[in-house]
């Protein structure tokens, strides 16, 4: 019987532990009590909008920033007194920070300067590292003559040659164009599997985090809002803000009719009365008094006139707007009876794959929406 990646990670020991980490810049409270355990061999992402403290957290792990209180442990050792140059972490910087006056090989070998090993041995290590990132034979090139993607690879080789316990990546793909970025995402995953080192990635790009990570911590204003695997994060966001930040989610106002330990009976604008089990109810919405129900655009289906479907529920709607993307079409729909709850008419966005033979519907068409209560999340 083979172990899955999840099994291995679940059994792995903690590599980074943050215990109530607080960071102040003057009066500004940048990190507000971060508690977090990152496991050995994990690909972990810190995701959030700019200014949420994700880079600050990464830099406290690297040792570039002192923490105001709390503790950071790496591989079980407290790091307060350990400066960045003595920590078992290495960093790939957002700008890559390739030393422009050195060659590629000199850049990669930079961290080996204090290493007692011989010259030939070091040269072999450099060649190995360059081969690992797909830059075999580039050693003699001038660093400033490289393209963005190549710089990124040199930065990776330079950090990995020291065999750190943790590799820290600060928005490493943000400077690349879309094609290159998608290619590097896949390569980074492969590289991480190959070397088995713990990767901690900082990104503001939710798609990037979903694609690459084993687990993701979503941060807002110096706090972790949710820490989960990609699927759980996408399907069951803990609050409206996380839901909004990750992917697209439709929100409809709702009213709780009755509630017990098993679940709740709610009336949703445009969708009618629904029974929701407890696992579909999120209570982390303290700042948001209004009860709302959310669902993802791809979880509901447009049904042509008379067309059969297997969903338990259907709702009448009118097409307000059509946005055609080639592989997908987005429809903005006005739901029948959506004004009944509080007087405001609601539109929702539905995405449909443009499968062969499926026609794109026109604006103004009367249509039906097929859906299942299982795709709804209640925020209260």
């Amino acid at each position: 019987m083979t172990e899955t990646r999840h099994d291995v990670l679940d059994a792995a020991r903690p590599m980074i532990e943050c215990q109530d980490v607080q960071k102040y810049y003057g009066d500004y409270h940048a990190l507000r009590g971060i508690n977090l355990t990152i496991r050995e061999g994990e690909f972990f992402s810190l995701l959030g909008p700019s200014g949420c403290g994700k880079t600050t957290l990464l830099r406290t792990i690297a040792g570039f920033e002192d923490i105001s209180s709390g503790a950071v442990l790496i591989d079980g050792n407290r790091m307060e007194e350990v400066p960045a140059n003595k920590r078992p972490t290495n960093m790939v910087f957002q700008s890559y920070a390739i030393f422009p006056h050195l060659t590629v090989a000199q850049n990669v070998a930079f961290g080996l300067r204090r290493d007692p090993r011989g010259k030939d041995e070091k040269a072999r290590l450099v060649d190995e590292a360059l081969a690992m990132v797909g830059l075999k034979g580039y050693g003699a090139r001038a660093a400033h003559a490289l393209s963005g993607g190549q710089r990124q690879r040199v930065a990776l080789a330079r950090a990995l040659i020291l065999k750190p316990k943790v590799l820290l990546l600060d928005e490493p793909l943000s400077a690349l164009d879309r094609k290159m970025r998608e290619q590097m995402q896949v390569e980074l995953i492969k590289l991480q599997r190959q070397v088995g080192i713990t990767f901690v990635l900082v990104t503001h790009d939710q798609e990037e985090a979903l694609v690459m990570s084993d687990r993701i911590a979503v941060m807002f204003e110096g706090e972790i809002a949710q820490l989960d695997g990609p699927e759980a994060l996408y399907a069951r966001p803990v609050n409206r803000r996380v839901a909004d930040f990750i992917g697209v989610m439709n929100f409809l106002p709702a009213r709780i009719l009755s509630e017990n330990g098993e679940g709740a009976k709610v009336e949703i604008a445009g969708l009618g009365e629904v029974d929701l089990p407890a696992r579909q109810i999120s209570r982390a919405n303290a700042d948001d008094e209004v009860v709302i129900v959310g669902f993802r655009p791809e979880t509901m289906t447009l049904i042509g006139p008379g067309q059969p479907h297997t969903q338990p529920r259907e709702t009448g709607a009118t097409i307000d707007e059509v946005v055609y993307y080639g592989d997908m079409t987005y429809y903005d729909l006005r739901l029948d009876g959506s004004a009944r709850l509080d007087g405001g008419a609601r539109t929702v966005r539905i995405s449909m794959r443009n499968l062969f033979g499926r026609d794109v519907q026109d604006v103004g068409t009367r249509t039906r929406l097929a859906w299942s209560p299982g795709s709804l999340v209640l925020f209260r």
Partner: protein
Amino acid sequence: MAKSGLDAEARQGLTLMAPPFLYALVILAAPLLTILTYSFLKDGYLEVIREFTLDNYLQVWADPIVRKIMLRSLFVSALVTLVTVALAFPIAYYVSFMVRPERKSMWLFLITIPFWTSYLIRVFLWKVILGYNGVINSTLTGLGIIDEPLTFILYNVNSIVLTLAHAYAPFAILPIFVSLEKIDRSLLEAGRDLGESRAMTFWRVTLPLAMPGVIAATLIVFIPTIGDYVTPELIGGGKIPMIANLIQVQMLALDNRPLGSALAVTAMLIVAVVSLIFLFLNRRFLKVRQ
């Protein structure tokens, strides 16, 4: 960290800043404060009497000779600034807009080279050029255009202005050039596209955008020229002293340090006031742009 008042970064920055700051404190601030103090003290014969007085300033403002020299200094440096900036603007414009990009640095190099030669010798050579039997006069008489050498170009304000306009040319050209270079060329096309004539585009788009450079140039030329000592001495033949010469005479030749100090402080005040006016104008221009 928050407790110690200054965080690690601020302490490191201040530590690094300490040597140059202390140096400037000792070599600049202490002397400036000294003359500020002196300017309020009484002059005794060959010594300074420690007694507060405003006489020095009264004298600076009341004495007709001092006032005349002050006004002349202001007038000369204003004229120099006007001439220098007016002569420099077309050059900056030419290099920025007409010269091909790869040749721009060569032009700048050409403009700055004369600046790197001895200031004194440059000033003296203008005397040679403008002199009674200097280059211009001997050429013109040689060609039979004039019979008598021209005298209006030597030992007067004109010659001082011309000499200083030459000496400070690069200081005026470079800031204007920099501000012209920053102008987005598509703005000019937009101006033309919106139906403005070439001249109107220049007047309504280019000139306002170049204004910060012009104001910087004005200040950079004005400040050193008002304190210039060499040119009035050499070109003016000592007959048309400016404020620097006056300060020097009071401080050293007449050994009246309080009065000399009051003159120096007044000169600094004039420079400060003029600078503030221009900085204010600059801010107005920047505000209009936003």
